[in-house]
């Protein structure tokens, strides 16, 4: 065969497969949204699930997912920033630094179920926190921390070197340069990355089954005292998240409309992830524009 013909065939095959991937995504999203959206209503979003009867909602699960995400971010963002800045600005190339890098790499490739089991052993049983939101948040910290470290390190490394040098030329201390010169420039990237990682945490289930638990107590949404056992804000109560709920409904749900509930909950989950994605893009661009516009002198 002529090379030209081969080239044409190969190119069209590559284009075909690339388009196939686009088709897979469109098909997946279309299927989830088409099947699920008809089941989503205010009642579905805010009412409690039913065990045996039809018509259960996902209210507590949705709340748990969001609350758990907030708790996790409160713990991981400052820790991840610290370690990430260290890796980007302070660590000198050497054995210790490459060891830490290896740790971050291993930690981020651990299967989430192993993280969940570790949480079960150490946080739930050994520290005796039980199946609770706080146990779940700590397990997700193990899961999310390496991501945050990576995001922060990359964001700091992508800051132009001249900016740092200008800071040194002014006689600023290293810490001052990090906090008031590099950090504002790196911020848009960090925020984008954090929101994207939040999307991942939001959909995480395997690590939560053994730490946050697979049940929710009856929540009283008028009780905002964080110490009372049926208050939604109590961090020491068990909490089933949306992703865990989907798994449970699919594999052991006995309600007659289990399939519809799974479809509706999946649609809600995917819509939330889509929102996280769009928000990441929008926020990153928005903050970047703000920062660069304020610096445009001429």
């Amino acid at each position, binding site marked *: 065969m002529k*090379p030209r013909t081969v*080239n044409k065939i*190969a*190119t069209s095959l*590559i284009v*075909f*497969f690339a388009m*196939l*991937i*686009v088709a*897979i995504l469109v098909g997946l*999203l279309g299927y*989830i949204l088409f*099947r699920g959206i008809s089941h989503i209503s205010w009642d579905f979003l805010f009412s409690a699930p039913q065990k045996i009867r039809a018509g259960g909602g996902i209210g507590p699960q949705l709340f748990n997912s969001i609350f758990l995400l907030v708790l996790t971010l409160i713990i991981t963002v400052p820790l*991840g920033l*610290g*370690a990430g800045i*260290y890796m980007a600005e*302070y660590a000198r190339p050497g054995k210790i630094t490459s060891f830490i890098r*290896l*740790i971050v*790499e*291993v*930690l981020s*490739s*651990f*299967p*989430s*179920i*192993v993280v969940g*089991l570790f949480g*079960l*052993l*150490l946080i739930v049983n050994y520290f005796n926190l039980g199946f609770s939101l706080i146990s779940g948040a700590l397990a997700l910290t193990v899961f999310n*921390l390496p991501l945050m*470290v990576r995001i922060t390190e990359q964001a700091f490394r992508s800051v132009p070197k001249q900016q740092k040098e200008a800071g040194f030329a002014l006689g600023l*201390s*290293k*810490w*001052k340069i*990090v906090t008031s010169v590099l950090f504002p420039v790196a911020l848009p990237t960090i925020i984008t990355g954090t929101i*994207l990682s939040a999307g991942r945490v*939001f959909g*995480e*289930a*395997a690590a939560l089954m*053994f730490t946050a638990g697979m049940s929710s107590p009856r929540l009283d949404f008028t009780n905002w005292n964080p110490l009372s056992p049926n208050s939604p804000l109590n961090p020491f109560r068990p909490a089933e998240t949306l*992703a865990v709920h989907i*798994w449970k409904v*699919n*594999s052991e749900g006995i309600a007659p409309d289990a*399939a519809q509930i799974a*479809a509706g909950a*999946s649609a809600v*989950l*995917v819509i939330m*992830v*889509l929102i*996280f*994605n769009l928000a990441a893009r929008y926020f990153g661009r928005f903050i970047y524009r703000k920062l660069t516009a304020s610096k445009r002198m001429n």
Partner: protein
Amino acid sequence: MRVKLKNSRIEKHHIEDFVGRTYMSFCVLLLITIIVSMVYFVASKGISTFTSGDVSVSDFLFGTKWSPEADTPSFGAFPFIAGSFLVTLLAALIASPLSLCAALFMTEIVPGWGKKLLQPVIELLAGIPSVVYGFIGLSVIVPFLRNNLPGQGIGVAAGALVLSVMILPTITSVAADALASLPQNLKESSYALGATRWQTISRVIIPTTFPAIMTGIVLGMARAFGEALAVQMVIGNAPFVPKSLFESASTLTSVITLGMGNTTMGSAHNNALWSMALVLMLMTFVFVFFVRLLERRNKI
């Protein structure tokens, strides 16, 4: 007076520097503590099967009989280890060519809008939670396989298909990064010699970026090997070595998912599940080792 003022100012930023440094060291130490305690706890639990019970390592790894609740229990985990490797390899076989095509499309065929089109697609595919993939597998792939092919639909093939979609984004983004960072003049000199695009891709671009593409595939396999819930929903969870692709099987992760909640801590059955978690953890180390090896080759 002036000297004193100057001194105190120096002290202030020294203190700031010190506090910042201490905080950062604390964060890094925390990372190290997490990983050390993780390895210690999972390993100490996982080893107890072999130290306290009368199960030997080879019985566990190569025994094919799994009946933990029988009168004379046997803990052969080989069916699950085989299942894990089987679905992982199949998923990589399905996903790798597709991902490579997507990456080539983004970087070589239509670099401009190809990237604009596929980048968000890849990000969204990566963002869809694994339970949603499991749900789709259960409600689309399983019925499709049941109606068109032998078997019940649930099984190795369904698991591999679900996993292959899940690892597509991982492989594609690593491969696309590698292709995009290839020096431009390599391609240009190939075109200057009169090579067609496919000749350039197959003889220059892919051989040069091969280690990086392999890195992507290994990362994808690591993800597939550790994925729990999506696989558990579609694979059928039968404790046997599958004889065909359309038979139901189990993976290490699916057995742990189902078993851990129903066994009491410290029982032999429970300990065997921890040993499987230990196998999963060791496999993670193997995958990371391969990634590092490939990256080192990539540098040269």
